[in-house]
């Protein structure tokens, strides 16, 4: 049979050298930073404006204001109402968007290079001159409140919310979603959004990143015309200090009961590490082995050996402060207990014994090899450079990435696992049918058990 194919696996050819695109920084007269990234042959250009105000900078009582402010940027500006703005962008074939997360607010556009200037003109108008019309702000706020209703009914979103609420102290912003909760979103009004936006309006801390085929495009000149007039808004604040403390001092199992659920959503973890951490390469390799690759320990065990799940994984959400470390899976209800047992076993095994050489090699080779694939088009290149800006990382962070991953040793991986995974203080948070799991008793082998029974979602 097998003579119809070639038995011997081919050996790879010589890799073509790859360098992350080089980029140049310049500053406009008002201090705004411009980064141009020439990527020849890519006529669809991506441009992003990064403001340094994130959801992490807002008061707990106004949680969600920054995310909502970003959504409201396109709802009206000095020159345009919302419809005029979106139609003007569409005529350029430009999709304009704005969003905010924990660490920044950003607005971006993808547009053919020939129409970059008019598209950037609209983008600049949107970022610098928003009017936050109250009727539109009210609508966006109501949409967020409706979205929160929907989140309550979605097992995945429900478990993610309950997980961060379990593992972070109540005074940490990370214990809530970046877009806020019912009680904090309900009172938000136009003025709150304006304040959230103004916190970032400091040209000295704003960066424009433009990537694509910029041949014949005078990025600096365009930026000077469109952005140099920006002035610091009253109410600007610098980076705030962030509370990211663990709430748990010992293991806790929290089970959110949903009668009749056919699967249990499982999250196991605790606060992780900030993005700026010296062992970033070792943590990357470690979490790739644990829960990043298809043949990661978690997926190989829970999916490919046991068939408990469609997919299991783990990772660190690295933010300006310590975002969560989480291992995750959705398993059929009957195997909930053995699945948690296997997940804990795999997490513990990372800590108690060094990884095998072939696992280390596979993870490093994957991260190094897939790096050029990630940056085939301007969008991800611009996005990653914007990430450097947000986290105050050096300009050579991306060009040295592969060498730093290559240098990670078994000892580094083991040390990262021992230092960064803590099963004694892990939260185990579940959304599923608690009644179907043998009266709930077996779950107590994992730690003290709390069962929460959600009321049925309120009806529309």
């Amino acid at each position: 049979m097998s003579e119809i194919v070639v038995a011997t696996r081919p050996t790879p050819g010589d890799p073509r050298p790859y360098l992350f695109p080089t980029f140049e920084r310049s500053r406009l007269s008002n201090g705004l930073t411009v980064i141009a990234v020439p990527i020849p042959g890519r006529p669809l250009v991506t441009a992003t404006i990064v403001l340094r105000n994130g959801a992490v900078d807002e008061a707990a009582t106004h949680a969600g204001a920054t995310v909502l402010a970003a959504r409201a940027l396109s709802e009206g500006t000095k020159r345009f109402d919302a419809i005029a703005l979106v139609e003007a962008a569409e005529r350029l074939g430009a999709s304009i968007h704005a969003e905010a997360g924990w660490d920044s607010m950003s607005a971006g556009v993808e547009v053919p290079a020939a129409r970059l200037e008019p598209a950037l003109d609209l983008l600049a108008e949107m970022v610098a001159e928003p009017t936050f019309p109250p009727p539109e702000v009210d609508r966006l706020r109501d949409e967020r409140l409706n979205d929160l209703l929907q989140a309550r009914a979605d097992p995945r979103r429900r478990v993610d919310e309950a997980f961060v609420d379990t593992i972070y102290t109540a005074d940490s912003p990370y214990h809530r979603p970046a877009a806020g909760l019912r009680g904090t979103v309900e009172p938000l009004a136009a003025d709150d959004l304006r304040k959230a936006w103004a916190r970032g309006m400091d040209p000295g801390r704003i960066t424009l990143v433009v990537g694509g085929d910029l041949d014949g495009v005078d990025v600096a000149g365009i930026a000077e015309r469109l952005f140099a007039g920006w002035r610091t808004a009253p109410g600007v604040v610098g980076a705030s200090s962030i509370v990211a403390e663990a709430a748990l001092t010992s293991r806790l199992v929290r089970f959110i009961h949903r009668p009749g659920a056919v699967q249990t959503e499982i999250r196991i973890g605790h606060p992780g590490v900030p993005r700026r951490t010296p062992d970033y390469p070792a943590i990357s390799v470690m979490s790739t082995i644990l829960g990043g690759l298809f043949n990661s320990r978690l997926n190989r065990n829970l999916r490919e050996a046991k068939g408990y799940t469609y997919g299991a994984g783990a990772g660190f959400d690295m933010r300006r402060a310590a975002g969560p470390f989480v291992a995750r899976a959705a398993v059929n209800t009957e195997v909930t207990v053995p699945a948690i047992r296997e997940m804990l076993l795999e997490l513990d095994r990372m800590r108690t014994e060094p990884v095998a050489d072939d696992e280390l090699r596979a993870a490093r080779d994957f991260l190094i090899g897939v790096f050029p694939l990630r940056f085939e088009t301007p969008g991800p290149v611009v996005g990653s450079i914007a990430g450097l800006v947000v986290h105050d990382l050096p300009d050579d962070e991306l060009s040295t990435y592969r060498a730093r991953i290559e240098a990670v040793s078994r000892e580094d991986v083991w040390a990262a696992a021992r230092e960064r995974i803590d099963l004694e203080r892990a939260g185990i948070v579940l959304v599923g049918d608690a009644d179907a799991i043998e009266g709930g008793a077996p779950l107590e082998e994992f730690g003290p058990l709390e069962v929460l029974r959600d009321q049925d979602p309120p009806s529309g």
Partner: protein
Amino acid sequence: MAIPTVRFTDERLPNGLRYIIAEDHLAPVVGVNIWYAVGSKHEVAGKTGFAHLFEHVMFQGSAHVAKSEHIALVQAAGGTMNGTTWLDRTNYFETMPSHELELALWLEADRMGTLPDALSQENLDNQREVVKNEKRSSYDNRPYGTWNEKLQAHLFPPEHPYHHPTIGSMADLDAASLDDVTTFFRTYYAPNNAVLAIVGDVDAADARRWVERYFGRIPANPAIPPLGDLSLPPTLGGERREIVEDRVPLPRIYLGFRAPVFGDPAFDALEVASQILAGGKGSRLYRRLVRDERVAQDVVMFTLGFIGGASIAAGWATVRPGVEIERVEAIFHDELDRLAREPVTDDELARARALVETDELGALQRVEERADRLAMFATLFDDPELINRMLDRFLAVTPAAIQAAATAVFRPDNRVVLTYVPVTAPGDAAALDAAALDGDEPTADEAAA
């Protein structure tokens, strides 16, 4: 804004394997995409879900590749991969650093040639459980997760193979045997039933030599059974309505219509119409339902293109709390009717065209997408050159064509209305643990996590 022409070669091996090569040396990346002309439409009653379960088995090893080793080798080479199953076809793809292309071709050839050599009951049972959990994750335990299955069931008669969803039924999956797997493989997984596209940083002469070396001796199957006549009346012949109780906080209306087949110019017109109706904040339905009247939380309109008799045009809107569902439905219908009543404006069409153009430019930047489309157009239409003509076809859609397509498709006697409502008593929807706004359009079922 001209979109760069994709230049390619289009050849066949003596065993019937069609292979398409397109060089592009911008990035050190190459995409491999192999389409097999077999999908869930080839399944018979009692064996639904089989094409997709089989796709999972394709990652369980072959004569020279161990279980899970396919993915391990691709990832260790710095590549990504997956497989997808849909009604008309199944495909497998790898995106590789260019110096690892040969590995991807060897892996695809090994499973095309020798899959049954490594087949075991244990691996089949394991993947059956994985697929059942995929069904639980992606359909049963998901927001409004049954809508696609219900639309297909209403829009296509029981004897038509589009009547059942790709994921199939759990009972049928349980009944699948090793013999079934082997028979399916020997019937459909033959070089003369496949198209292989290779796009990116490759020397075409090298690629051709490797295709011949690795695939050249795999025997053809001269007896691939033809599919029966899948043609359908162009319209449903009456409105069908279903109220679905689900544990969702907000009601949602789904509208589904029987539409012309993918490849018909009227289908292109419906795609442009979808953009005008609900493609972003400037669109008609978004403005009216979400922004102006504020009766809906969101609105979506899209097409699902199939080649066997009819496609689907569909949309949904999530009803805001306190709003009568009937009101949202009435406005939705009114906007669809308006598209049939009067031509779209020149400005609307110009904006839609500009956005379609940017979307195409963005999509075609990536070697993976180009390989997928070349294989798709060759498999479905025997015409890979369509990759260079699709944009012109979209740009050629006129107001009259949109009006004609809307008149033919958006008719009361051609529609399905699914109304998802919150359950009234707890426990009523025991099997349907509710979920939320995902905004995902349905995609082909995938093998890897």
